[in-house]
């Protein structure tokens, strides 16, 4: 019988939640990497037992963890090339992973500064991996979106990482500025219909696309209107919070911006607003139903200065019309005295016949719906603040 595995990253470790296809009875494993920040954990579509995790700490920096058995055991895949794979005492010979910005003239324009909050040039400094996106076809290939914003790729299972420097070097990089959460590359979408096409998004630069597997990039922000920047329709500088795409309909993208929910029907060449009747169009997450590409989900947040749900009510909003017309989904969710946030990578959908939707809150709850959002129940209520949620369907 098939089942699901939900991968949860929190401020203080990772948790793995499993259930059969009914998605009613859950087993909880964790905390893994207790005490560390787990910005993201994601499984390979090509091999569900291959998981990648971003483990980080302000004190000790960035570590990449990999599991080859669905999260039962983990290893640091950074074994130095040509060196033995274990110490004489038999311990794994791994190192914390290196993410070194490529400033060589051959592979990218040497780019050493971006704009700081006050507009002054600031050196590019690696801080952490926000998002890991495994290849759709090769378990050993994985992309990493990092802070300060850049895209890295590993083709050896996370042992070594190379920057796709054409993104930072495409022309506007020196004008990018950090958002409140830092200057992070937080969204990576691989196009199942075109292996050369990748979409990414950066706070607070905007969305970008490559059509040649990462060599060259272009900003795709036409139609975005951001009142909080000097030129509201600038080519870059928009605080895109998250982007989503249904694998069943490549090229149609949905975006939750700082303010505004938008869609694009031409692979990001142009966007238009679909906020419609949402109570507020500020928010972080956005996702698309696995089988109905016009059904989308957001969690409206009160404002950019009050990062919690409005009116003390936790409501997921669903549109079945590709935007503009939204309905509040409340069954099973707290409707009074609730003041949590749902962060940008903390929602996921599964691909079972009745689409499951999952999200985690800064209050440590992970909610699941096995009926596309009609009703919800908490899987767990008291985890550390949730940073990310992903889900895998297991055959």
């Amino acid at each position: 019988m098939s089942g699901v595995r939900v991968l949860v990253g929190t401020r203080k470790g990772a948790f793995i939640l499993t259930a059969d296809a009914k998605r009613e009875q859950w087993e909880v494993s964790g905390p893994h990497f207790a005490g560390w920040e787990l910005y993201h954990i994601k499984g390979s579509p090509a091999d569900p037992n291959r998981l990648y995790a971003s483990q980080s700490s302000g004190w000790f920096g960035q570590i990449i963890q990999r599991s080859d058995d669905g999260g039962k055991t983990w290893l640091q895949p950074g074994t130095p090339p040509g060196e033995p794979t274990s110490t004489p005492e038999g311990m794994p010979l791994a190192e914390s992973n290196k993410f070194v910005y490529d400033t060589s003239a051959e592979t990218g324009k040497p780019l050493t500064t971006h704009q700081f909050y006050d507009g002054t040039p600031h050196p590019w400094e690696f801080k952490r991996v926000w998002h890991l996106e495994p290849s759709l076809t090769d378990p050993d290939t994985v992309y990493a979106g990092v802070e300060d914003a850049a895209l890295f790729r590993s083709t050896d299972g996370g042992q070594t990482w190379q920057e796709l420097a054409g993104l930072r070097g495409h022309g506007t990089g020196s004008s990018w500025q950090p958002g409140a959460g830092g200057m992070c590359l937080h969204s990576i979408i691989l196009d199942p219909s075109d292996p050369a096409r990748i979409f990414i998004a950066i706070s607070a630069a905007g969305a970008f696309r490559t059509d040649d597997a990462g060599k060259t990039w272009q900003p795709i922000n036409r139609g975005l209107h951001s009142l909080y920047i000097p030129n509201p329709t600038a080519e870059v500088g928009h605080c895109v919070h998250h982007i989503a795409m249904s694998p069943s309909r490549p090229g149609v993208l949905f975006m939750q911006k700082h303010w505004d929910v938008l869609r694009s029907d031409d692979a990001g060449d142009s966007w238009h607003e679909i906020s419609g009747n949402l109570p507020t169009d500020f928010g972080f997450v956005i996702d698309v139903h696995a089988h109905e590409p016009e059904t989308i989900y957001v969690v409206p947040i009160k404002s950019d200065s009050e990062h919690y749900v409005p009116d003390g009510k936790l409501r997921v909003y669903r549109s079945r019309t590709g935007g503009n017309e939204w309905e509040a989904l409340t069954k099973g969710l707290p409707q009074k005295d609730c003041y949590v946030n749902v962060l940008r990578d903390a929602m996921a959908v599964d691909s079972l016949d009745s689409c499951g939707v999952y999200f985690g809150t800064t209050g440590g709850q992970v909610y699941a719906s096995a009926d596309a959002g009609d009703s919800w129940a908490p899987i767990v209520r008291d985890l550390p603040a949730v940073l990310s949620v992903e889900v895998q369907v297991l055959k």
Partner: protein
Amino acid sequence: MIRVELPSHLRTLAKVDGEVQLDVQGQVTLRSVLDALEARYPMLRGTIRDQVSGQRRPFLRFFACGEDLSHESPDAPLPDAVVSGAEPLLVLGAIAGG
């Protein structure tokens, strides 16, 4: 034998309990001790010193014999008591917050 005390998260990462004991060849300095530590526990590379610059990570500090060595030259000799093994080199996480 050089004794090194690591913060608990790094002990977990290196899969060690308690103090680490290292043989250090040549002069005993912060650099030579950390080199020996990282050679024996490669999973710690990058967690104490930046992998590229070799600089101490900003939220970590080094102490020995009651003295703060965080801002000493990495090539300065460590105190005799550390060299003899009488005292450990402490790697501490700076306290950021209350």
